[in-house]
């Protein structure tokens, strides 16, 4: 489903190269639920951005559903992304659209008929448990409810992979847990889920495959939980982290 083969990505900044990913080889199968953990700046975002083809790898091969991503033309990127649903920590809903419109928006983009939209969106909203909020605006919803809308938007086009970038980062533990159950439900329907997180308790509780990244390398890949003693995913490498943040900013301004 997702295959990284000796993938390396460096960020060039004025202060020198920053490692994004360093010779990463990993495979995620169809239908898996995978946590991607590691300290900030370890390369988790790089990993996701490479899958989305938001950035290009320096070397190596990335395949999604058997299709090579690294050599993909700009024209093919939108089609590629329709296979991937994405959920962010900050929801990224459109404030001036209702819940229904926010979800329908993803279908409009892929040129689907009004009839298909009117059929599918209510289904998704009910699956997310937010049918009652269809005509409300994101500002009127709680954080957990907003994240449900965002997940709805991500899955309405039936992507093969759902990428969740710290989806529980802004939520209290109870709500976070509800969201995790929702993701598990989606996973059980056959969607591969790749979730980036810092939340140790969630990772431990879910008992799924955990891939640990640090300084651009995969340092752990095991079923059930990450190696708690070696890698404190929530806070290690504080100094490197801030350096990388500065580097990242410079990189963005280039």
């Amino acid at each position: 489903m997702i295959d990284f083969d000796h993938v390396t990505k460096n960020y060039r900044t004025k202060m020198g190269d920053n490692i994004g990913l360093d010779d990463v080889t990993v495979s995620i199968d169809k239908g898996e639920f995978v946590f991607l953990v590691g300290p900030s700046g370890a390369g988790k975002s790089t990993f996701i951005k490479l899958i989305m083809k938001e950035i290009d790898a320096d070397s190596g091969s990335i395949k999604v559903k058997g299709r090579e991503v690294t050599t993909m033309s700009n024209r093919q990127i939108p089609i590629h992304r329709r296979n991937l649903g994405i959920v962010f920590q900050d929801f990224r809903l459109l404030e001036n659209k209702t819940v229904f419109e926010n979800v329908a928006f993803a279908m409009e983009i892929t040129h689907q008929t009004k009839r298909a939209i009117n059929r599918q969106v209510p289904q998704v909203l009910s699956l997310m448990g937010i049918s009652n909020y269809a005509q409300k605006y994101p500002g009127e919803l709680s954080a957990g409810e907003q994240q449900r809308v965002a997940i709805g938007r991500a899955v309405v086009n039936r992507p093969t992979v759902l990428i969740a970038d710290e989806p529980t980062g802004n939520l209290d533990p109870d709500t976070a847990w509800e969201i995790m159950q929702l993701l598990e439900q989606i996973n059980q329907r056959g969607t591969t889920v790749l979730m980036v997180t810092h939340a140790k308790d969630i990772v431990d509780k879910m008992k799924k495959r955990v891939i640990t990244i640090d300084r651009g390398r995969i340092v752990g890949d095991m079923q059930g939980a990450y190696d708690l003693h070696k890698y404190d995913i929530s806070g290690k490498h504080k100094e490197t982290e801030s350096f990388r943040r500065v580097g990242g900013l410079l990189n963005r301004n280039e």
Partner: protein
Amino acid sequence: MSRAGHTIAQAFRQIGRNRAMTAASVFAITAMLLILGIFFIIIINVNTAAETVKKDYNTIEVFLKDNTPAAAVKAAENEASAWENVKAVKYRTKEEAMDILKKRWGDSAYLLNSLSRNPLPDSLVITVSDLSAANAVAEKARGLQGAEDVKFYKDTVDKLMKATNGIQIAALIIMAFLILVSVVVVSNTIKLTVLNRSEEISIMKYVGATNWFIRGPFLAEGIVIGAFSALISWGLVTFIYGRIIARIGKDVLSVISMPLVPNAFLSVNLLCIFLALGISIGAWGSIISMRRFLDT
């Protein structure tokens, strides 16, 4: 919703959202087009005037020696007719020349009656089809059988052509500059809309919208702004020009003895030109501003 429908609806929604900026760019483009229109009218009128004047100068008179035999005259006439850029060759007897002269002198023509004999020569009047070729034709005419002298308003024509060319080039440069400024103005407006919606655009890209799906509404917005400005400025220019013709047109006519281009003719052409310009300025402006934001 169909794709085109979505694009256009979205464009109008965007225009509604930044009414102030839209008004500002419509205002700016309208101002540009107005100045452009004035230059256009000046060019057209200068051209027409030049054409009218040129018509008076597109003849070359070849004076013939006295007693040139009729056969030689005929031969010269045939020869000249066959030349390139010659529209017509007419034989003018000295009597006809005298009549023309008398007509030109008008009330004073009686003075000519006192001449004991007609001093004017017979001549061939060559009308050229292209004024720029008149020099060459005049040169050749000197070699015609029986030709004594060739008369042609070379200097006048040269000056006239230089002046019209100069005016045209100057006006074109100014127009090009104005178009450029308009494009920058529109591209700034669209840039603001793009920035306003950058969040939405980034989400669209994540969900898998094609670039054209995202660009479409912005392009349509630019085109609508351009077309709208074109209509306003066209209305204004046509109205003003109509007033000018009605007020002073006739007086100017009699003073410089040349017609102003009629409003009806100008207005149709101006509408096409304004629409084409407005739409391309709008489209161009939005493409420029989007390129920076939507390269992937």
